[in-house]
């Protein structure tokens, strides 16, 4: 009787072990392109007539939103 119960539990544990690693790997692979896309997102922020320093035709513009307090 015990042997019958033991043989029914083994497949479930086996399935978990067999597929868990594959599921984790799949999630990691799927998350990579999303991460890369998020890092490369660029926002269009108008400069307008806000106070600035540096060359107006500079190749890099740093816009900083500040609160003095």
């Amino acid at each position, binding site marked *: 009787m015990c042997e019958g119960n033991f043989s029914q539990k083994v497949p479930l544990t086996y399935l978990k072990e067999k597929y868990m690693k594959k599921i984790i790997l799949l999630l990691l692979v799927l998350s990579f392109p999303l991460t890369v896309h998020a890092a490369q997102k660029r926002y269009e922020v108008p400069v307008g007539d806000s106070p600035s320093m540096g060359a107006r035709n*500079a190749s*890099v513009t740093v816009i*900083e939103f500040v*609160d003095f307090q």
Partner: protein
Amino acid sequence: MEEYSDRVRLVIKLFPYKYRDHAHIAAEAALSARDQGRFWQMHDIMFEHSPKLDGASLQGYAEEIGLDMEKFITDLSSMAHANEIERDKKLAKDLDLYNTPTFFINGRMIVGERSYEYLKKVIEEELINASN
């Protein structure tokens, strides 16, 4: 900025937090100083003394950097640049900003305080990108 003045442009947008007592008047003080050609002096002195940015303190800073006090006091009392400040605040809201400082380096958003080395690294990356 001195290191990159010919290759990098730094632009300031004002995003005073509504629940900070002196945030708006400090923003007004900055723009009043801007009109008198002393924006960066006021910017530096306010950050140096923040959060001591009440009206009396701001007048002291204005005197220290040599502003026309009559014009400065008039600007503060009338909040002469309220529209410009609201424009920046609307822009921040449209961008879903929730923290200061927030940087956009050629459009790449960086939220919160960062070290000079970190910002320099990003700037250097963007300088390389721009040259390609």
